[in-house]
C-alpha cells in the first residue's frame, strides 16, 4: 500500500532530493516538509475534484426514537462506530428497515453478549465468524413488545457432518421454550440450514436460546431477530416541500400524528429530518454516504485511493514542488500528467453505467 512515506519519497525521488525514512519522517525539514504538505494538498485536489469516489463510500443507519423528528448525520463514530464525517449523502438510498434486536448477531469476531447456559460455547473464525456449540447452550435476552410479532432467522452449519440437531428456543426465561422450541438439522451438509420463524412476544423481555445437546460441533452463522415489519424506501423531500406539505403535521405536539416514517429531508442546519415523526424506537433508517477524506499525518498513513492511482497524487504533488522550485516547465508537464490521470480516475471510478428509464406514473388509467 502506498503510504504517506511512500508517496512523499516518490516525489522526492523524482526531484532527486533526499528521501525520508520512517524514523525521520516526523522531523522532516526543508523541501521534505514542503513535499509532505504537497502530498496532502494533492489528495485534497483529487477528492475535491470528484464526488462519489468508491473508496470514500460508507453505509450506516440511525435507529429512530419515538417522537424525535430530527437526527444528526454521520460524524466520527456516530451514529455507529466506524462512521466518519460525511461529505455527501446519497438521499436516494434511505430505507426503513426493522431494527436488529440481537446484539452481536453475526459473531463477526467473538461470541460476546451471549450468555452461556451450559457447556463451553466457543468462537470459530470459519466463514465470517461463527458460534460453535458442542454439548452447550447459549442465550440472549432482547427487549420486545408484548403481542408484537417478530421474525427470527438462524443459520446452522454442521462442519463434521454429524447430522446432529440444535434446538432454537424462544421463551420468557433464560433457556426457556415458553414461546417457541424448534429443532434444526443440517441435511445438505456444506450448505447449512436456515430457520425462519415468526413469533409473538408475550412479555417485554424475551430470551433467544440455542442448545446443542450432542457432543458434535455445530456452528451458528447468525441469529437475527427483528420486528415483523416490511422494508420500505423513504422518499426524499426538499426542505421547502416538507415545510409546505408536512411541517404543520409533524410539528404538532400530538402523538397521534406519529407513525412509521415515509419521507426524509435535509434540514437547513444540515440534519436529517424524518416525516412522519417515528412512533417508536424500533425503526432503523439505513442510508449511504461518502465520507470526508482524512489528511495523512503519520508515515504509515495511507490514502483512501487505490494504489494504482498513487501516480496521480505524486504528479500533483510534483506540480506544486516544481512551482516551489521555480521550474514552470516541469510543473506544466506534471500538471498535464495529473489532469490526464484525473480523467482516467473519473472514468474508472465515478462514471456510472446508465440506462434509459421512465419513472412517470400514468394516473389516467385509460385512453385520452
Amino acid at each position, binding site marked *: 500500500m502506498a503510504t504517506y512515506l511512500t508517496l512523499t519519497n516518490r516525489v522526492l525521488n523524482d*526531484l*532527486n*532530493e*533526499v528521501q525520508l525514512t520512517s524514523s525521520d519522517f516526523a522531523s522532516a*525539514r*526543508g*523541501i521534505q516538509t514542503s513535499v509532505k504538505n504537497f502530498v496532502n494538498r494533492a489528495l485534497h485536489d483529487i477528492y475535491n475534484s470528484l464526488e462519489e469516489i468508491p473508496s470514500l463510500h460508507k453505509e450506516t443507519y440511525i435507529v429512530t426514537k419515538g417522537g424525535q423528528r430530527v437526527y444528526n448525520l454521520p460524524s466520527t463514530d456516530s451514529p455507529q462506530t466506524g462512521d466518519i464525517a460525511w461529505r455527501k449523502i446519497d438521499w436516494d438510498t434511505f430505507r426503513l428497515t426493522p431494527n436488529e434486536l440481537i446484539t452481536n448477531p453475526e459473531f463477526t469476531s467473538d461470541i460476546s453478549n451471549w450468555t452461556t447456559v451450559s457447556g463451553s460455547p466457543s468462537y470459530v473464525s470459519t466463514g465470517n465468524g461463527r458460534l460453535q456449540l458442542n454439548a452447550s447452550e447459549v442465550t440472549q435476552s432482547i427487549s420486545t413488545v408484548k403481542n408484537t410479532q417478530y421474525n427470527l432467522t438462524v443459520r446452522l452449519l454442521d462442519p463434521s457432518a454429524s447430522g446432529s440437531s440444535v434446538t432454537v428456543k424462544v421463551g420468557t426465561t433464560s433457556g426457556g421454550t415458553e414461546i417457541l422450541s424448534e429443532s434444526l438439522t443440517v441435511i445438505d451438509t456444506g450448505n447449512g440450514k436456515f430457520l425462519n420463524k415468526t413469533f409473538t412476544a408475550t412479555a417485554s423481555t424475551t430470551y433467544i436460546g440455542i442448545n446443542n445437546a450432542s457432543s458434535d460441533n455445530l456452528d451458528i452463522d447468525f441469529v437475527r431477530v427483528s420486528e415483523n415489519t416490511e422494508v420500505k424506501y423513504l422518499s426524499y423531500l426538499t426542505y421547502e416541500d416538507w415545510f409546505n406539505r408536512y411541517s404543520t403535521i409533524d410539528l404538532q405536539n400530538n402523538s397521534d400524528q406519529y407513525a412509521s416514517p415515509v419521507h426524509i429531508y435535509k434540514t437547513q442546519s444540515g440534519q436529517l429530518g424524518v416525516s412522519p415523526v417515528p412512533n417508536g424506537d424500533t425503526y432503523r433508517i439505513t442510508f449511504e454516504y461518502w465520507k470526508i477524506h482524512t489528511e495523512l499525518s503519520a508515515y504509515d498513513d495511507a490514502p483512501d485511493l487505490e494504489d494504482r492511482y498513487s501516480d496521480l497524487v505524486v504528479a500533483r504533488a510534483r506540480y506544486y514542488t516544481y512551482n516551489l*522550485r521555480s*521550474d514552470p516547465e516541469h510543473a506544466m508537464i506534471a500538471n498535464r500528467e495529473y489532469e490526464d490521470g484525473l480523467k482516467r480516475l473519473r472514468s474508472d471510478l465515478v462514471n456510472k453505467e446508465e440506462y434509459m428509464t421512465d419513472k412517470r406514473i400514468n394516473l389516467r388509467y385509460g385512453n385520452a
Partner: protein
Amino acid sequence: MPNTSQINPFVTSLGGGLILNRDVFSMQPGEALELKNFEPDITGGYKKILGTTKYNDNIVPQVASSAERVVMSAVFNGVVLGARGGSVHYASSGAGSWTSLITGLGTPTQNYEFRKFNFSGTDNIVICSGTSTPRIVDTSYSVTNVNATGSANFKYVEVFKNHIFFSGDSSNPQSVKFMAPFETNDFATASGGGEIRVDSTVTGLKVFRDSLFIFCNDEIFKLVGSSSADFALQPVTRKIGCIDGRSIQEFGGDVIFLAPDGLRTIAGTDRIGDVELGTISKQIQGIIEDITTHNINSLVIREKSQYRLFYPTGDNQGEGAAKGIICVIKGQPQGGAGFEYSELIGLKVSCCDSDFISSTETVVSGGYDGFIYQQESGNVFTRAATTATISAFYRTPDITMGDPGIRKSMQRVIWNYENEGNVDTNFKLRYDFDSPSVPQPAAYTLSAGAGIAVYGLSISTYGTAVYGSSGANLVRQSVEGSGFTVALRVEEQSTNPPVSFKGYQLEFIPGGRR
C-alpha cells in the same frame, strides 16, 4: 542516448590544503575547510596518513615510575636511542631488548636535545638533558661526559663550523658557549672555545647555511664566521622570537620555527626584515592559537617534503585527542612552491626524530606510555596494548559554482582517487552550509574495483586485475539533494592502505532562485 544537456559539470583538482582564514567565496574549491589525518600529497591531492607501529616491542625501561614518558627518541648508528626517567637506552627495531647506555641524568624536566656530528671519522651524538652535563655517545656506545670547565646542565646543542655550541643553562639562559674546534670536552678560550651572550633567554640553536641562528624568546640572532677569532653576532630580528626550540627544523631549503604568531621561516624573516609576510601559517591561524607549550615537538619527513609539529596539551590528555600539524611544501598549479597544511589527530608524541637507517628514512616518536613508535608504518595508530583506527576527514569549501543565487540539483559526484589497496570510504554531501533546515543526504560509499594490479593486494585477483594498472580510479556516484551551496566531506575510517584523493567533478542541474 540520454539528454544530459541540462547537466553542468564542475571539475576540481584537490590542492591548497587546510584553509581557515578565508571566506568560501574566495576559497578555491580544491582547498579544504577540514583536513584531518589527511596530508597534502606531493603527487597531488590529499592522502590519508600512514599509521604507527611499535619500533621495538618492548617498553623503554623505566627508572622510578611507569608514568615516565619517553623524553628522547633519536635515530643513531642504525638503532634508536630512547631516554626515560633520566636513563638512556638503545635498541634495534623488532623484539630485542633495550640496552642501558646512560644513567643518572636526573628526573627529566624537558625533552633531551641532541645533535649528531662526526669530527674524527666516527659518528657521535651529543645529548643535552638540561638536568645534567651533556653526554657524547659514539658508534661503539662509549659514553663521554662533557664535564670540562665551563660545562653546565645545558638544554640546547648545535654543531657549527666544527664547534659544538651549547645553551640553555638555567643559571645563564642568555649564554651560548662553544667548545674549541673539533673538541668534545674543552671550552677553554685558549683552545678556541668561548662564550657569546645575547640579551634574551635562548630557546634554541639551529645551523642554516653559513650561520648559526640563535633563537630567543623575542629575538633572533645569527652567528657568522668560522672560529672564535671571527665569530660575529648579528641580529636577525628583535621583534619576533621562537616559543619553543623543538619546533625548529630545516625544511624545504629554509628553517621553520614556531613564533608566537605562527610558523615562520628564517629566510623569510631575514629577507623581509620581519614583517607580516614572513608568517607562513596564516591559513591555519585558528589552530596555531590553540597550540600550548606543554611539550612541542617537530620532525621532518624528507621524502614527503613534510614538517610535522606535535603539541600534546598535558600528561593526562587522551591519546585520541592529541593533535599536531602537518605542513607540506609542494608545487602550486600557478607555479612556485607553497605551504599546505592539515591536522593530525590521535598521535600523542612525547619526542621524535627522523633519520636514515640503511638508506631508509625512519621516523620515530616516543610516547607518553613508554614505548617508541615508528611513524609512516601500518594503517592504524598503535598504542601500548591496542590499536586505533585512523579517522581521516576532508571537507571541501561550500561551493557556489559561480552563482550562489541558484539552486543546484545534484546528480552525480565523480571522484578521482588513487588507492594502494581496498577502499572503504564514505563521503557526504552537505548543502547550504550544513543547514539544519535543509535535508542532508546520508553518506555514500566509495570502494575500489578489483581492476588494479598491486603486488600483494588481495583485490588484485589473477585474471581480473589489469597488469600495469595504476590504481587510479574514476568513481561515479549518483547523489541526491539540492542546495545553493554544496560541500563534500570524505570520512575515511577504515584500516585499509591510504587512499589519495586527487579531484572530483560535481554534476548538477541548475534550478530556480527560490
